[in-house]
């Protein structure tokens, strides 16, 4: 029997008992549908996080802070350290400042390609055309980072003139008109220097950022602007103050892989610093989402296993029904291996039909849910709640077919082992 004939016969046989097959297909459908939907949910949310991530940093940059070694491990109070300064993050969080010496030390560590101290700038207000003054926080720009833009372009790090990307929410307040109008206009940024005097600097808007989850509210300056603001801010401060940084950005070779990145982190650790990659920072979020998806997938797999037992049952009945037919075919010279493939392919066909329908159904429902969630979750622009990537869809279909094949082996083996004589005597 030709393989094509085997497959064609298996297809026909699968639908010989329509009601029975349909019910089994329905069971598979439910499992595959649930699995696709939970998978799609994970894909959608993680995709959204990935998109947002590239606006926070890039994957070949590590944020390095000085490890606070004096924090007692037993949870007791930490000794006061005069080098401690307020760090980014939740109010009250502190970090030990990095000095120029520390920067040199970091630059000397193997694997570090370049190190850039983060110059934190506290902007008092932003003003356009002598209008109302608004508070503005300034984010730190890491080379390679990309912000979702409503208009304009990313800041040019090498530009000679001060530039910034302004969040969309400031447009109306600063009377800048539409996003397209705002690009090219100039705003004034004010900082207070060390002597308590308020000074301003001018910057050109090159782009307008769309609100995202993570960059909401912050403006992004280029190096020239940061430098200028930092210089203004530290005017009159003692030398020791101007060379203290909360953190530094270290570039490393991301292509070298996770092991090398881990080794670099260990070396930084030995030197008394803490290096964290973007993945470390976001790892917690994605780990939680992956965990939830895994649990949901677990339920779907349980449904699939139940459906697999349904396949076993269906095929055992089919083998029983076709005892004489199998006996006849074997008498006519059909080999046992062909009988086996005839029945196991029939199981795979049931799996294929069920999972294909399930995936299609999930994609259909996903579209509906995305339409509804677009309205419900309007605060998270750009979020596709349920996304389907071809790889995970194919994985679902293929693994269901694999489960079906496994389920089919038992009945198929029974059919293959049938003795033609006793099968033909069967009445």
């Amino acid at each position: 029997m030709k393989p094509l004939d085997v497959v064609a016969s298996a297809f026909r046989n699968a639908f010989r008992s329509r009601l029975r097959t349909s019910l089994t297909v329905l069971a598979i459908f439910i499992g595959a549908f649930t699995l696709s939907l939970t998978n799609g949910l994970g894909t959608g949310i993680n995709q959204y996080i990935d998109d947002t991530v590239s606006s926070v940093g890039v994957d070949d940059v590590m944020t390095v802070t000085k490890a606070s070694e004096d924090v007692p491990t037993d949870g007791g109070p930490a000794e006061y350290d005069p080098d401690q300064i307020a760090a980014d993050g939740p109010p009250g969080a502190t970090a030990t400042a990095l000095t120029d010496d520390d920067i040199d030390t970091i630059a000397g560590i193997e694997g570090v390609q370049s190190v850039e101290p983060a110059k934190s700038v506290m902007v008092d207000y932003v003003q356009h055309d002598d209008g109302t003054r608004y508070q503005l926080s300034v984010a730190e720009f890491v080379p390679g980072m990309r912000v979702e833009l409503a208009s304009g372009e990313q800041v040019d790090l090498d530009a000679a003139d001060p530039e910034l990307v302004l969040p969309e929410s400031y447009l109306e307040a600063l009377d800048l008109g539409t996003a397209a109008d705002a690009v090219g206009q100039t705003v004034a940024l004010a900082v207070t220097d060390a002597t308590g005097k308020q000074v301003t600097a001018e910057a050109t808007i090159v782009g307008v950022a769309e609100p995202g989850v993570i960059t909401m509210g912050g403006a992004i300056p280029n190096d020239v602007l940061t430098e200028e603001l930092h210089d203004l801010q530290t005017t009159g401060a003692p030398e020791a103050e101007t060379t203290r940084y909360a953190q530094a950005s270290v570039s490393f070779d991301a292509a070298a892989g996770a092991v090398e990145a881990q080794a670099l982190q260990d070396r930084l650790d030995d030197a008394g610093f803490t290096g964290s990659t973007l993945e470390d920072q976001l790892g917690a979020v994605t780990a939680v989402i992956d965990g939830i998806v895994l649990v949901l997938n677990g339920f779907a797999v349980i449904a699939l296993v139940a459906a697999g037992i349904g396949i076993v049952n269906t095929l055992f009945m089919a083998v029983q029904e076709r005892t004489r037919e199998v006996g006849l075919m074997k008498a006519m010279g059909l080999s046992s291996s062909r009988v086996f493939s005839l029945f196991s392919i029939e199981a795979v066909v049931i799996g294929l039909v069920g999972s294909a329908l399930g995936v299609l159904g999930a994609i259909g429902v996903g579209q509906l849910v995305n339409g509804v969630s677009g309205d419900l979750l309007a605060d998270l622009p750009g979020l596709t709640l349920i996304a389907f990537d071809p790889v995970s869809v194919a994985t679902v279909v293929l693994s269901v077919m694999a489960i079906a094949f496994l389920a089919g082996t038992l009945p198929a083996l029974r059919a293959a082992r049938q003795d033609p004589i006793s099968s033909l005597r069967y009445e």
Partner: protein
Amino acid sequence: MAPPLLSVSNLHKTYGSGPSAFEALKGLDLDIAEGESLAIIGKSGSGKSTLMHLLALLDRPTSGTITLDGTDTSRLSAKQLNQTRNSAFGFVFQQFFLNAQASVLDNVTLPLKIAGVPRRERTARGMAALAQLELDDKASNKANDLSGGQKQRVVIARALINQPRVIFADEPTGNLDTATGAVVEDILFDLNRRRGINLVVVTHDEDLASRCDRSI
């Protein structure tokens, strides 16, 4: 004299083992010449079906040899046995063993499908075999919709389609009334005479047995 097509010597077949063992065949010797028709008769339980199964290579003897065309069949592998049955033998059973929901043509071409013959050739040969038995107008009917005699003719067409050298018939007329049974017998003996196909018939019907060249 030409060497026999099938030759059997000192054939034993025992079912079960120990005290409950049942010896169905006790040292049988038999030669079947090319083109011969043979009837195996006897009471039920006398081992005639057993003999047919052994001759048709559906079962292996407990001891003794079956030689087909000068080859000792006990030396053949399972695959070779399957091929031999598929290409050299045709089967007609008392129960028709037709796939009720498949078309008559699909039922008839089943041995060719097993042999791996392409669909186009299967259809052509299937129609030719049906035409021989005057069933070509029923080719696309469901097997279930045929009368008993028609079904048995479909079974004969199926047995003929691979141009076998031997047709094994187990009670071919057992399920038919006398008139249709006679028609089926005529077809079988006609094939035996005109095409030289060996006929091995298992029956308890003396009349049918008497039409064979030899009865055992």
